[in-house]
């Protein structure tokens, strides 16, 4: 009953999306407000029905209704409740339903809070949203219906893949999808602008907060996924340059570029055509990511379902939207007037450089992701493009970008003074050089690259601090004035500083982890002691335990440093009987930003166990960096200027007049 209701709700949502696809566009043609307003009500109703459909699937999973194929294949009655819920999107059908639910959520938000948008723009935006939604509803209903019943219902389910039974899965895919799908809004705005043939600074002001929201979620989603891989896969790697990871990194790179170019457009009314193109490209990359992940065309750590009909269907959606939007762009872009002159050395110039480097870096990742696929199809041989490729191509571009980052926010609009900015950044540069010298001396001439890279990270952070010190007049003016100024600064200025500093923080973490990571692999018997990076880890013993749907073997380690006991670490190996597979649960001990990491291997016949112990210096900075970036994004989002068009309708409406 619930399954049928969920299915029916999804069909109704499709019907609503089809109405929303056409009626508002006709309304805009006829300048009929009533028809244009249909977009708003259908978008909200669509959200309601998809939401109901999603809740139906969650209910089926929670109730362990094994007469539904999707539940039978991915659930088990003994599974803890939290994984029954998160298992809903731990499979192809459910995750696609989550995808369209989030799409409908964003459409609903625009409908509910977009009261200050011109009526025809809102109608067009929601219609474009509905085009995307219709395509994906059809995809789900035709190829991936999660509500299919089994004729002879089994008694017990096949359980969720053990690797996915982790709290990381509760958070990572929804976050990622909020990011991916969130970019559909800027896409819809871009298409709407092209259809209307009109674009102005106000347009950028409406688009920026939505892009920012998507970007924040995507940043956190990628960081979350990376940390999850780090502790769940058991060998301490946090980024694999895997096609599925690249699929999320590419929209992030393009989205970051979009955030910056929208800024130029909003402030200076320049780079219009480019911003439109970036909006289209960013969401196209999100769609491409969905295709890569969902169609199973890639061999990857995250290999997916391999039903070709699905792949072809998503490929059609992909071609339709990317091809259609780019053709529209090619036809209409020339009609958009360029404006806002600026010298090459200026804030705009710096942002253009940022955009150049980000999009080119994105293109490099795209090339590395698709090249092996293309060679396999065209030349019929297999190969893999891994970290060495990206280290030689992506990393140098990003280093250039990081070198430029501190200069950007300090340059003036229109015409900047590079020499003056360099002088003001002198302190930051000196800080970077001092750190390079210190690290160099401390490591006594090891690899030269690591100290240089750390110095660069410090330079980026110090640059962000310098900018804030200058703007608040710290050390120059009385402290109370500084405080007053700090409060008076736009929140987006603080956001910029935090986000840029986050880049430097992540950079330092990445360099420290990859350079000074120490590892110990051996078989250990009880009472053996392993020495890693100054820590003594004594294996106390092994014990067995029964979990809810698995058996686990726990190894207990006593960690001490210089004879002083610190903590107990308990890595384990879980054996899931239903699927007959096992997972390794690593144990982590955090010391400052560094971590000790233990994961277990097999038990030998003599009763010893293979262990892998890592000391990862400053590894947590890798994820604190993105958290700082996301925090900067949130600060920016709370900037009063951006509340126009952001989900704060009451206040936004009042501010619309003075802002224009």
């Amino acid at each position: 009953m619930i399954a049928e209701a969920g299915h029916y709700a999804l069909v109704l949502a499709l019907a609503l999306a089809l109405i929303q696809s056409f009626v508002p566009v006709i309304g805009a043609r006829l300048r009929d407000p009533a028809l244009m307003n249909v977009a708003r009500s259908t978008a909200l109703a669509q959200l309601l029905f998809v939401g109901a459909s999603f809740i139906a699937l969650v209910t089926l999973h929670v109730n362990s209704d094994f007469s539904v194929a999707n539940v039978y294949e991915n659930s088990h009655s003994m599974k803890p409740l939290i994984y029954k819920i998160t298992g809903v999107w731990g499979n192809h059908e459910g995750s696609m339903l989550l995808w369209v639910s989030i799409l409908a959520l964003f459409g609903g938000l625009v409908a509910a809070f977009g009261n200050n948008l011109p009526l025809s723009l809102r109608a067009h935006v929601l219609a474009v949203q509905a085009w995307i939604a219709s395509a994906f509803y059809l995809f789900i209903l035709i190829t991936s219906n999660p509500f299919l019943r089994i004729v002879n219902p089994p008694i017990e389910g096949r359980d969720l893949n053990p690797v996915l039974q982790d709290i990381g899965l509760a958070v990572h895919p929804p976050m990622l999808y909020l990011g991916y799908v969130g970019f559909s809004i800027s896409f819809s705005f871009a298409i709407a602008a092209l259809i209307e043939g009109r674009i102005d600074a106000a347009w950028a002001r409406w688009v920026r907060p939505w892009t920012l929201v998507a970007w924040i979620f995507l940043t956190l989603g990628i960081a979350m996924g990376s940390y999850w891989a780090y502790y769940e896969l058991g060998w301490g790697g946090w980024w694999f340059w895997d096609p599925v990871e690249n699929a999320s990194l590419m929209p992030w790179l393009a989205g970051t570029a979009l955030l910056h170019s929208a800024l130029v457009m909003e402030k200076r009314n320049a780079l219009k055509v480019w911003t439109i193109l970036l909006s289209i490209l960013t969401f196209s990359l999100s769609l491409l990511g969905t295709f890569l992940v969902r169609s199973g065309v890639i061999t990857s750590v995250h290999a997916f379902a391999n039903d070709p009909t699905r792949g072809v269907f998503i490929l059609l959606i992909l071609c339709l939207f990317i091809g259609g939007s780019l053709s529209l762009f090619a036809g209409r872009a020339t009609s958009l007037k360029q404006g806002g002159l600026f010298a090459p050395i200026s804030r705009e110039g710096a942002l253009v450089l940022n955009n150049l480097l980000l999009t080119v870096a994105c293109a490099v990742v795209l090339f590395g992701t698709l090249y092996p696929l293309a060679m396999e199809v065209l030349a019929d041989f297999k190969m893999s493009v891994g970290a060495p490729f990206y280290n030689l191509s992506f990393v140098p571009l990003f280093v250039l970008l990081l070198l430029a980052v501190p200069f950007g926010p300090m340059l003036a609009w229109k015409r900047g003074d590079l020499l003056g900015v360099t002088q003001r950044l002198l302190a930051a540069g000196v800080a970077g050089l001092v750190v390079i010298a210190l690290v160099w001396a401390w490591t006594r001439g090891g690899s030269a690259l690591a100290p240089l890279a750390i110095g660069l990270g410090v330079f980026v952070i110090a640059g962000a601090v310098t900018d804030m010190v200058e703007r608040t007049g710290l050390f120059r003016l009385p402290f109370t004035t500084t405080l007053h100024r700090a409060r008076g600064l736009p929140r987006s200025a603080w956001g910029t500083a935090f986000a840029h500093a986050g880049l430097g923080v992540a950079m330092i973490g990445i360099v420290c982890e990859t350079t000074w990571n120490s590892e110990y692999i051996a078989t250990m018997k009880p009472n053996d002691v392993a020495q890693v990076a100054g820590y003594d880890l004594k294996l106390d013993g092994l014990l067995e335990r029964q979990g809810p749907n698995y058996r686990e073997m726990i190894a207990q380690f006593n960690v001490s440093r210089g004879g002083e006991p610190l903590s107990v670490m308990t890595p384990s190996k879980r054996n899931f009987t239903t699927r007959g597979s096992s997972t390794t649960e690593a144990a982590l001990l955090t010391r400052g930003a560094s971590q000790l990491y233990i994961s277990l291997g097999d038990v030998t016949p003599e009763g010893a166990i293979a262990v892998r112990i890592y000391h990862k210096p400053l590894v947590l900075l890798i994820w604190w960096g993105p958290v700082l970036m996301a925090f900067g994004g949130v600060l920016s989002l709370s900037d009063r200027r951006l509340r126009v068009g952001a989900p704060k309708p009451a206040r936004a409406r009042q501010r619309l007049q003075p802002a224009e």
Partner: protein
Amino acid sequence: MTRKQRRMTIIGGSLGVLALAAALVLNALRDSIVFFSTPTMVAEKHVQPGKRFRLGGLVQPGSLQRGDNLAVTFEVADGGAKLPVAYKGILPDLFREGQGVVAEGALDGNGVFKADTVLAKHDETYMPKDVADALKKQGHWKDDYGAKDSNKNSDGMKPAATTAQGNSQGAVR
């Protein structure tokens, strides 16, 4: 500066960055690509010792031998040929005799494949896609490899995949 000059500066800068990126990519492609081979392909092509590649196939049943201090040797077979593999470290959770495996490394002077990374990545058919494709192409594919897969659509979101690294730098070299 006129508008035209400014535009030319920007276009020139863009071309510069693009040229730089193209140069970097071409340089990176020259020596960081890793090809995939099966034991038969290795035997046919006479791969040079020291040239890195990915070896894929089935772990020959009965060939796994554990030595001291986590050293292991096993044979990878694809129905046509066999290749001995030496590895030091912890094998991934999903490593099993008779199942698919992908190892990365290079041949030594004696024709032994020294692996520094062993991947046992698979869906529930316990068969890496690379290996399955290669076996199918060579006509050694048996349907019972897929027998455990009672339903094609049931893959998890991220099917179990584990990696063993012979050294800590294996992934980031």
